[in-house]
C-alpha cells in the first residue's frame, strides 16, 4: 500500500469512527458596518454551513447560509433588514460564537416567500455578532437578496486626526 492509499485508508477509518464535527460557521460573506448601506447578494452563491441554528432548535437543513460578521457598539440603535426575491428568508443575529448552538438573539422569520425581514439591534450588549441569511428549505431556498444596514450608532471611532 503506497502512502496515498494509506492516507485514504486512515481518513476512511476516521470517518467510520466518527470525528468531532462541530457545527461551526464562518462569516464568509464579509463584514457589515455602518457604512454598508444597502448591498445586493445572491444567497445561492453561499454554501451550506449549518444544518440547524438557534440553539439547535431551527432545522434549516441544507439551505445555503450567507453569514456576515458585525460589531455592535454600546447603546446602538440601528437595524438590519433584508428583502429576498422568490424565497422565504430567515434572518437571524447569532450571539457570541458562530455555531448551530448559538442563541439567535434576534430572529426574524415573519413573512413568507419574498417578504422582507428585519430586526432592531437596540438593547443588545456591545460585542461581535453574526448575521445569518438562510431558509428552512423548500424550493427555492435562496436567491437575490437586498440587505440593508441602518446605521448602528453610535459608531466606533476608528481613528481621528486634525491634520
Amino acid at each position, binding site marked *: 500500500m503506497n502512502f496515498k492509499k494509506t492516507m485514504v485508508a486512515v481518513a476512511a477509518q476516521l470517518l467510520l469512527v466518527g470525528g468531532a*464535527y462541530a*457545527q461551526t460557521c464562518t462569516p464568509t460573506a464579509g463584514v457589515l458596518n455602518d457604512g454598508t448601506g444597502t448591498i445586493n447578494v445572491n444567497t445561492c452563491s453561499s454554501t451550506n454551513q449549518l444544518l*440547524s441554528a438557534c*440553539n*439547535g432548535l431551527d432545522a434549516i437543513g441544507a439551505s445555503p447560509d450567507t453569514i456576515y460578521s458585525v460589531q455592535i457598539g454600546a447603546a446602538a440603535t440601528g437595524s438590519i433588514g433584508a428583502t429576498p426575491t422568490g424565497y422565504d428568508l430567515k434572518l437571524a443575529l447569532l450571539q457570541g460564537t458562530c455555531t448551530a448552538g448559538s442563541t439567535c*438573539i434576534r430572529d426574524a422569520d415573519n413573512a413568507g416567500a419574498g417578504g422582507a425581514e428585519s430586526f432592531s439591534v437596540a438593547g443588545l450588549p456591545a460585542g461581535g455578532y453574526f448575521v445569518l441569511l438562510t431558509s428552512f428549505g423548500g424550493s427555492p431556498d435562496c436567491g437575490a437578496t437586498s440587505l440593508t444596514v441602518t446605521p448602528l450608532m453610535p459608531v466606533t471611532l476608528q481613528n481621528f486626526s486634525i491634520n
Partner: protein
Amino acid sequence: MKANVMMKTLSLAVLGLAGLSFAGASMAACQATWGGNQTPPGPWGTALQTQAAVSVTTPGLVSTECKLTVGLNQNSSPSAKGGAVDPTPNAEQRYRARFVTSTAIALTQLNRSALIFNVVGPNAAAGGTQNALQVFLIGNGTARGLRFFVGDTVAAGQYRQVDIALPNQAGANRIEIDLTFAAGAGTNGQLRYWVSDAATATTDAAPTGTVTGLSNGAWGGVDQVVLGLAGGSNAWRTNFTATDVVNFDEFDSRRQSFIGQ
C-alpha cells in the same frame, strides 16, 4: 468533574421570586413579563421568544408558585419558539435533568408535534447536528405522548426513537432523563428515562425505559439545553394558536444523582 454537583435548579417559582418587583400588586409573586430573547431573572441564560406567547403564570404545576407557559402563534414560521436556555453544562459526559410539563391541547393527531426539550452537545456527528437528545410532544393517534430522539451514529438517521404516551393525559407529568455518553467511537452510551404522573414517586432503580448501546461520543457531551416549545410541525403551527399552550415547571439538572419528585 465533581460528583453530585447540582448544575441548576430552575423551578419557575425561583423566577417568580426574582421578578417580584415586576408583579406589582397582583396575587402572585410571578414575573409579569418574559421579554423576548433577553436575559431573564433567575438562573436561566436566555429567554427565547419568537412568534410565540410566553408568560410566567400562577399557580405552578406541582404546588409551586409559578410555571412557564408557552404557545406558538397560529400560522407562524418554523422559527417560532418560546422558552429558556441553560448554558451552564460544559461537555458533561453524564447529564441528568428533570422537568414537569402539562398541556390541555387536544393533541391526538399523528402529524402534530413540537420540541419541548433540546439537549445540545459541543460537537456534531459527521453530517449531522449538535442535538444529542430531543424530546417532542406528539399526538400518537389517540392520545398525547412523547417522542425521544437520542443520538446514535450507528442508527439510521443518527438517532434512535422512543415513543411513550403521557401517563397523566390531562395533568402534570414528570420527565427525567439520565444521558451517558460513550467515549470516542464506543457503543456504551445510554439513555434512561422516567415518564410519570407528577404526583407519582419514582426511583433511580426503576426507569420507565432504557436505551442502551448508544454510539453517541461524537456529540462530545452536553453543552446547553433548551426547555420550552419550538420546532412545531406544520400541522401544529397551522391548527393551534398561541392560546394552545404547554406548561413547564420544576427544571433541575445534575451530573450524577437521581432527582425524582
